[in-house]
């Protein structure tokens, strides 16, 4: 049965928040994360009636990663909320941005090369297997392992932990 716009709305409600966290891990900025999620869902909508249900989550994650990588390539600006007059919300936003955030980890993550960062996030935040990450990023499995290991080492250094863990 063809999926409807109501189904799309339901899927957005269920998946937007986790995808936003995933996007934030990739880009390090909540507004850019919103932009990435919006772009992802707009692209998804173009194919909404044709994507197989069982591959939907993987498909969406692939769109988001590709959007992130191309977003960085052409250095387009992120979409922000136009909130010029509201200083109060400006304070709230800035206060909220850092809540619960390990700034050192965030900085270390953002210093990783983009594809390496994507591999680390897919592997350790999204709990994807090496095979799945390799398929999504178009890398050899060995490359995923080595890239992820390097990235994890960098993050562990930022966390002040010994860098002995390997993939």
């Amino acid at each position, binding site marked *: 049965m063809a999926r409807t716009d109501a189904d799309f709305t339901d899927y957005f409600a269920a998946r937007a928040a986790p995808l936003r966290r995933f996007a934030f891990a990739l880009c390090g900025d909540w507004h850019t994360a919103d932009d990435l999620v919006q772009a992802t869902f707009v692209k998804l909508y173009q194919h909404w009636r044709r994507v197989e249900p069982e591959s939907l989550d993987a498909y969406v994650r692939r769109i988001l990663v590709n959007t992130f990588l191309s977003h960085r390539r052409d250095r387009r600006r992120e979409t*922000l909320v136009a909130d010029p*007059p509201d200083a109060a919300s400006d304070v709230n936003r800035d206060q909220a941005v850092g809540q619960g955030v390990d700034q050192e980890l965030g900085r270390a993550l953002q210093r990783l090369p983009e594809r390496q960062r994507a591999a680390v996030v897919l592997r350790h935040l999204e709990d994807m297997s090496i095979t799945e990450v390799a398929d999504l990023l178009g890398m050899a499995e060995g490359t995923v392992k080595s890239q992820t290991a390097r990235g994890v080492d960098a993050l562990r250094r930022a966390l002040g932990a010994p860098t002995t863990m390997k993939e």
Partner: protein
Amino acid sequence: MHDTLVSDALRSYVSGGPPMTIDSAGVLAAGRRVRTRRRVGVAAGAAAGVAALAAVSVVVAGLLPGPVSAPAPPAGPGWASLDPAPFCAAAAAPATGPGTAPTSTVNEKNGHVIESPTEPADHAAARLSCYLLGEVPRRLPGATFYRDPDSPGGTVPLQVYRAGVEPSFSSSAIVADARGVGTIGFGVLPAYESPADATAGCQPPACTVRTGPRGEVVTVVVAGLTRNGQVQLVNVRVYLARTITFASAVNANTAATAPAAPGEARVLNDLRAGRPDLPLSIDTLIELIAAPALTLFP
């Protein structure tokens, strides 16, 4: 081997965050717009053929959002000039309203001590209005100013008012001139983070750090696209001593687009460009809000 330490740290890193600025209705509407544009483009291309590509491009381009078509004039009365005199007179008079005891709070996020100004809010608002109503129109010759409907009733464009429960102040206006229509806004807040934290948290490409005219730390966030016809937004913060000043400019009439829900901020993608460029340049915004007159601790 899976690294639990890193996984846990990543989960902590992505927890929280400000409220999401997009919703399903906005995404659905954007998706439909893209689909419609694609269908129009495909149909036009198929009918006209390759030889007529240039002509088709014009037709399709004419359907895209942008300032090519004249923007609707802002609603309500316009002010061809703004008079700062009443506010300057009020600011020059002794402060008589209830002041605030010198207090400070600690920002839970970063440990920064936020000092509360002691100046009565009405007096501060008049003092800040005196500055902005005098200085901003000078940099926008020929512009007409319209009230931002989100500002309190009875205020004039750019008049400063107290915003929220914090001792912070806001001001905004819709601006129309020969270039089109845009929106500008200003904020003055007790410093809630140090310049060093602001610098560390300002990461390219969206955010860049600059230096103000007196050596102040300045952060500039640019959003949107710089291509002609696209909505652009810039948010500038200047870190004065104990005060953070904020300025924003967007090349769209923000009041012409309703927020997705009452009280929610508007999403940039939903705005329609009202002019090809920002009403005030980034350099001008920095110059305006780096002024010592905007301190909360005169």
